[in-house]
């Protein structure tokens, strides 16, 4: 079966104002299957966010193709691209920046929902309920600045779910949130995966999130994927030296298993 999302030999180069050239992404191949969670890990500047934006069709790659359910997004005419890409939804790091400050929750949800006003209202309430903004009806008239950081991220997630995406591309979705609510948001994302069977491309620098969440892990360094494989294997027995460093940098609670893994890795 063909994968849900396939990036084929994708490259992207940025030209800095000084004239220097940054190869943000170089010749990356990456696949995400239906219902699968892929964690794309790497330190900041490794090109993983750029890759996420390319996958979403927000950034045109210099080279390579983005295939979504067998269709090549870069070859679609604008109107078809506009509709096709709704199968993917982003969740950004900073929920505050991802919500138009001038729109209430009702308006934000209505932008994502189609249909009669009454039906939209009902669905919006159900979605808000489902992401833990309960009761949903009470949150409809609120503006983003009237919500807490965690509530804003939940609202952003509800809006993303409103178009019933097959794939959610989450770029550091927990980094913007308070430490105390990270766990809640993570649990919400896991719950959504189990309930709706959506696939995730989870972009993170945090190995522990990848460990908690991912079926597969791809490790990115300086614009290239250096290691990929099932999460358990990659994180317990990393082969590439960069992955070893990343894994070693995380303080561990479940010491026995990982300590052994690290020794094996060394």
């Amino acid at each position, binding site marked *: 079966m063909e994968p849900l999302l396939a990036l084929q030999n994708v490259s992207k180069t940025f030209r800095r104002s000084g004239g220097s050239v940054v190869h943000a992404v170089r010749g990356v191949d990456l696949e995400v299957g239906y219902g699968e969670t892929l964690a794309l890990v790497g330190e900041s500047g490794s090109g993983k966010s750029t890759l996420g*934006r390319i996958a*979403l069709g*927000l950034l045109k790659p210099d080279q390579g193709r983005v295939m979504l359910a067998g269709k090549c997004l870069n070859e679609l005419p*604008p109107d078809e691209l*506009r*509709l096709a*890409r*709704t199968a*993917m*939804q*982003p969740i*950004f790091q*900073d929920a505050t*920046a*991802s*919500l*138009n*400050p*001038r729109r209430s929750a009702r308006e934000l949800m209505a*932008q*994502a929902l189609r249909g009669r006003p009454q039906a939209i209202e009902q669905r919006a309430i159900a979605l808000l309920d489902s992401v833990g903004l309960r009761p949903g009806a009470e949150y409809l008239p609120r503006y983003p600045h009237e919500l807490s950081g965690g509530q804003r991220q939940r609202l*952003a997630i509800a*809006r*993303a779910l409103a*178009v019933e995406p097959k794939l959610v591309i989450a770029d550091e979705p927990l980094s913007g949130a308070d430490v105390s609510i990270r766990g809640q948001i993570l649990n919400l994302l896991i719950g959504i995966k189990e309930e709706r069977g959506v696939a995730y491309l989870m972009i993170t620098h945090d190995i522990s999130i990848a460990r908690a969440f991912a079926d597969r892990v791809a490790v990115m360094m300086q614009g290239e994927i250096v290691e990929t494989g099932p999460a358990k294997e990659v994180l317990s027995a990393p082969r590439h030296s960069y992955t070893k460093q990343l894994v070693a940098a995380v303080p561990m609670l479940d010491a026995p298993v990982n300590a052994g893994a690290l020794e094996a890795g060394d």
Partner: protein
Amino acid sequence: MRRFLDRFLAYRAGMTAGLYVLFLIAVAIAAALWPGIDPHEISDRAMVAPSMAHLLGTDELGRDVLLGLIYGVRVSLTVGFSAALAATVIGVLIGAAAGFYGGWLDLVVMRISEVFQVVPGFIMAAVIIALSGPGLSRVVMVIALLAWPQIARLMRGEVMRVKQLEFVDAVRCLGVREWVILGTEVIPNSLAPVLAGATLIVAQAILLEASLSFLGLSSADIISWGRMLNSGQRFLFNAPWLSIFPGFAIFITVLAFNLLGDAVGSALNPKTQR
């Protein structure tokens, strides 16, 4: 909105200017609604110095200067506000399109706006009015034509900043059309700096209208401050009040709109903390 008001009130000069502008608007409305007073009315008490009967004196035809100033407010404000509105609408649309779509459109718009900025505005306005004949609507059009590039540049810069914010990308991923994104997401979030720029254009427009009238490039049957200056200058030494009071009115009003524009700009700018 609350925060904006609080910050705006912190600028004393701007607030004073704002109150003065409100006062001018009230005067203009009162003059329009007050029945039975004709500022053109000629009397036999010509060239009377300021006194209790005529607070600011009378001119060579015995017309009351204060009454003239009061009726002149309407011309100044009408020209100022309509020119600023026209320039803002044109500038916002063109600047937003240039900043949002970029590419050759941006290039062309910016080069055109540079042409307008290089041309000496007053001379161009004087030439156009001299060739096409006087009239308030022509003055408004000329000022709008000269001023829209300022707004377009402001708008372009702000749109370029706002369009790369994440909420724009988020809406794009919902399958919303690009021009709808521009109209409903980007433009409403880019208007703040334009507001300050538009206020400054009011000042420029009032000054330009007065200058054109002073040169005689306005119709004689319309009372405007520049016109009063123009007819008063002949009597500068016999009846200085004919020149001083209209000149002062122009000076204060232009200053007020400039201060107001600065205060609005500062209050809307999150980087200026006080």
